[in-house]
């Protein structure tokens, strides 16, 4: 329920000339606050562009792909190894975390006794918020030495994938849990009364009904994995090279910004902002994709 401005006539000035119109003041104060809030995203984009322009105006986008390597002190700005790093780490972790997260949600909804399911859900919620630096620290002191014994150097794409998997699993599990929760109870009863097994019900009834929610969840997760910085930085070794095996160290775009921003000047700083702008663009695209999926594939949300 809302108070609509065009329908409500503010208390008439004629009748109460003495009384100050607080409603009018309130609405305008709130509007200004909301305008500030809404402007933050624009402000972020504007500043990313402003800081990126010096580089883009002079050199364009070409050097990011055609320079020999990444070495800003020599004026070389090839992003390709970092792009590969981000892409491989993200894909690897999403591929592993998606089934694990969805199965976790199935566990909460259909397999665990209610009490255990709720406890497990609470645990996942908690894990979704644990500071990334804590995961990174654990990865650095526990995981990397373990991988090192398997195959030196330890700080590697594999370590990054494992840490990212642990970090994004809760996100996907929670979204999946929420979309399973929305599957109408009658569907399940119907399937059970037809004598379908639990797993058969899940494959034939639950998944199709929850499809769009699951897609949205995966997309959100991709965004989270791409944007994750500190934990990845702490376990991946940060060598600027396109990895040839899963045990090679990598550097992601985000880690690159965090590592070099402190001392970057001039074109170097500007180049880092270009990579930030690219990240932002990817996030916006993912948000749009999630929106499109939600709108097109679930007529229920549209009608209600």
């Amino acid at each position: 329920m809302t108070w609509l401005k065009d329908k409500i006539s503010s208390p008439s000035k004629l009748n109460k000339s003495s009384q100050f119109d607080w409603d009018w003041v309130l609405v305008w104060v709130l509007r200004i606050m909301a305008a500030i809030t809404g402007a933050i995203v624009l402000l972020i984009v504007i500043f990313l562009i402003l800081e990126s322009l010096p580089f883009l105006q002079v050199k364009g986008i070409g050097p990011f792909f055609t320079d020999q390597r990444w070495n800003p002190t020599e004026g070389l700005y090839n992003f390709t190894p970092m792009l590969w790093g981000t892409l491989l780490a993200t894909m690897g972790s999403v591929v592993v975390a998606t089934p694990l997260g969805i199965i976790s949600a199935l566990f909460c909804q259909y397999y665990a006794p209610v009490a255990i399911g709720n406890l497990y859900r609470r645990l996942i919620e908690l894990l979704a918020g644990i500071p990334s630096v804590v995961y990174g620290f654990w990865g650095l002191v526990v995981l990397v030495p373990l991988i090192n014994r398997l195959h030196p150097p330890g700080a590697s794409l594999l370590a990054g994938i494992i840490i990212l998997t642990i970090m994004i699993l809760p996100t996907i599990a929670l979204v999946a849990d929420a979309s399973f929760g929305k599957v109408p109870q009658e569907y399940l009863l119907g399937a059970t009364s037809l004598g379908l097994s639990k797993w058969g019900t899940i494959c034939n009834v639950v998944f199709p009904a929850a499809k769009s929610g699951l897609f949205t969840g995966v997309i959100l997760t991709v965004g989270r994995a791409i944007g994750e910085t500190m934990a990845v930085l702490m376990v991946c070794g940060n060598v600027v090279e396109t990895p040839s095996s899963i045990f090679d160290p990598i550097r992601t775009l985000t880690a690159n910004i965090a590592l070099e921003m402190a001392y970057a000047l001039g074109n170097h700083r500007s180049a880092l902002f270009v990579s930030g702008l690219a990240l932002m663009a990817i996030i916006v695209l993912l948000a749009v994709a999630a929106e499109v999926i939600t709108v097109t594939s679930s007529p229920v949300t549209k009608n209600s």
Partner: protein
Amino acid sequence: MTVTNLDNLQATTQESVLMRTEQLSLSYGKKIAFEDVSIAINQSKITALVGPSGCGKSSFLSCLNRLTDLIDNCRVTGRIFLEKWDVMNRQIDTIALRRRVGHIFQKPNPFPLDLWKNFAFPLKEHGVKNRQEIDLIVERVLKDVGLWHEVKDRLKDSALALSGGQQQRLCIARALALEPEVLLMDEPCSALDPISSGVVEDLIASLRQKYAVLVVTHNLAQAKRIADYVGVFWVRDNRGKLIEFGEAKQVFESPQHDLTAAYISGHRG
């Protein structure tokens, strides 16, 4: 009797008409809730609107004090007058309007405050700041609704602790505290148990002396017991219409419209 033709009705009751509507229609988006409703609400009389559910009676009430302003996507056309005052005019002071036209809802809706504050908060907002004055008003209106002896020792308790019937009488008292001229009541008894319902019904009947009351009800027997005038709503072409309006006695004893006759005798609705 054709509904849109108000002239003959007004001729008989003109001196006491307090509020009237002319061809009032309301739609939510493309769906028309009711159409072309013209009625008159008389001073010191109870006017009842009856009819099956979903024919726009409650929406009609909300137009009269412009509560429809709060609802998204809803459009009202036609005219409403409170005495000579054009209620549909955008420039009018809705706050003053709603003070003159009180509204009681189907479900009692006391504020989640203590009993006393349920009165003090609206009174203060309308300029009654003096504590003694508020106390006097609270006592008077609670006595008017017969609640005073039940609650006078627990005015500091939460209003939500009262029973449903008590809550509804509290809401009526709260509306009375602002000294309205018209009281709109939207099925005020239907959410209550039979005993509370009887108490509230007696209360409504007694309000006739001081106020113009417009009550929406499903309960034909109730309308028969308390109403001076009756309007019958019906759904036709998927929208609400007022099919009959007149003195209660006439509507109940010699209805003009076949549907009214069927409805009153219990064959339809």
